[in-house]
């Protein structure tokens, strides 16, 4: 009871995300993918023509609304602070390889929990991978790893990510006709499955505000337990998991098993290793993909660079046979995950200094 009193805000945020995601599935989003930051950024990459996987192209309003909701919230609560300059190129590639790992498993941590809540037991291997990836990241943090400071900078820089999202929103609403060109919108497959724009945007905008206030972070949840025995962020994730499960049960969306799960494969080695890579990259960058979006909304332009890295990584993953599919991993999945792990390990080993 004491625990609930202390952490009720973050728990409510997790509960809201869990219920909202399952409802968005009811309203049309893909199964066990009510909200997936990695998948949705991948869909945006596809809509913009950065990859040619015709079944995963859509400008997901959820992503835009996360940033814009966080932006508005940070303005209202006077936390909008444009800042940057903490090794953006390294953060770009952490984002890039985080997406590689996410697309070999097929989901960000949010989706891993939503898949579990929908009965997709393949996500168990991914959860184990997340824990191990974050555990490795924590060892680096304990050893003095850090990317150095960011510094306050021009107000305008903090507007770039919200303006980018606003532009994407206009692109989605206007759907301009460019002969033979983007934006592309899937006619079948996951990219064609989506809730009405207004519902997606409104729900995600509210999540953006809620998560900006509570600092909801799925990677941080695991990290804080390992690093500091702190269960604050974890209480939010547990709220998400339990209420997404209950909501799925009520909506008839709970289908337990390994085989035939929506937008998932059963190669547990790579479900695990994909998420080890992603988890490590999130830990080194200081936030899960959702958290990076919320940070970019409140003016952290380095988080914005991480987001762009993820979008580029998604384009690359689909163009180069790295992304997995329900049929299994791609021809280059394993190679790319190993390269990503080497990059992250090098980052953790070589980028350290004593702070105090």
């Amino acid at each position, binding site marked *: 009871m004491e625990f609930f009193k202390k952490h009720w805000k973050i728990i409510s945020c997790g509960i809201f995300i869990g219920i909202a995601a399952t409802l968005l599935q009811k309203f049309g989003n893909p199964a066990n993918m009510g909200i997936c930051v990695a998948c949705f950024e991948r869909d945006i990459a596809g809509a913009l023509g950065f990859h040619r996987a015709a079944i995963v192209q859509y400008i997901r309003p959820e992503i835009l609304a996360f940033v814009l909701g966080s932006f508005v919230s940070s303005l209202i609560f006077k*936390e909008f*602070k444009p*800042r940057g300059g*903490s090794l953006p190129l390294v953060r770009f590639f952490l984002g890039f390889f985080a997406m590689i790992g996410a697309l070999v498993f097929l989901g960000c941590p949010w989706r891993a929990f939503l898949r579990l809540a929908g009965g997709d037991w393949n996500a168990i291997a991914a959860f184990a991978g997340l824990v191990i990836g974050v555990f490795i990241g924590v060892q680096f*943090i304990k050893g003095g790893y*850090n*990317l150095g*400071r*960011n*510094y*306050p900078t021009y107000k305008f820089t903090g507007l770039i990510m919200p303006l980018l999202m606003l532009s994407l929103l206009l692109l989605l609403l206007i759907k301009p006709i460019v002969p033979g060109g983007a934006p592309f919108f899937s006619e079948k497959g996951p990219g064609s499955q989506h809730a009405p724009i207004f519902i997606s945007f409104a729900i995600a905008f509210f999540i953006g505000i809620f998560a900006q206030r509570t*600092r909801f*972070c799925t990677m*941080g949840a695991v*990290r*804080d337990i390992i*690093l*500091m025995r*702190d269960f*604050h962020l974890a209480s939010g994730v547990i709220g998400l998991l339990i209420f997404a499960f209950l909501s799925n049960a009520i909506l008839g969306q709970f289908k337990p098993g390994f085989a035939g799960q929506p937008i998932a494969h059963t190669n547990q080695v790579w479900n695990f290793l994909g998420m080890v890579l992603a988890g490590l990259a999130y830990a080194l*960058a*200081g*936030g899960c993909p959702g958290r990076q979006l919320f940070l970019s909304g409140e003016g952290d332009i380095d988080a914005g660079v991480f987001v762009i890295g993820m979008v580029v990584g998604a384009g690359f993953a689909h163009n180069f046979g790295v992304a997995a599919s329900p049929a299994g991993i791609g021809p280059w999945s394993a190679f790319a995950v190993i390269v990503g792990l080497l990059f992250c390990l090098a980052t953790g080993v070589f980028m350290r200094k004593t*702070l*105090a």
Partner: protein
Amino acid sequence: MSKKILDLRGLSCPQPVFETKKAVEDPSFDGLEVIVDTKTSVENIQRLLSGFKGVSYTVEEGEDFKVNISKG
């Protein structure tokens, strides 16, 4: 002896709260001023300190945040 100052501005999560934790747990801890630049870091440090017995703190809010931590 002047109070130890820890400037943790601009650092990504979890560095501000983790460095504070290390400093407070250090046997030589005898008061500390921590400077951070986001409300998130302040909240994290407050949550951290609420778990320590025999440590009190005040928060000074300005352009940045100063958390003054002392024994007792």
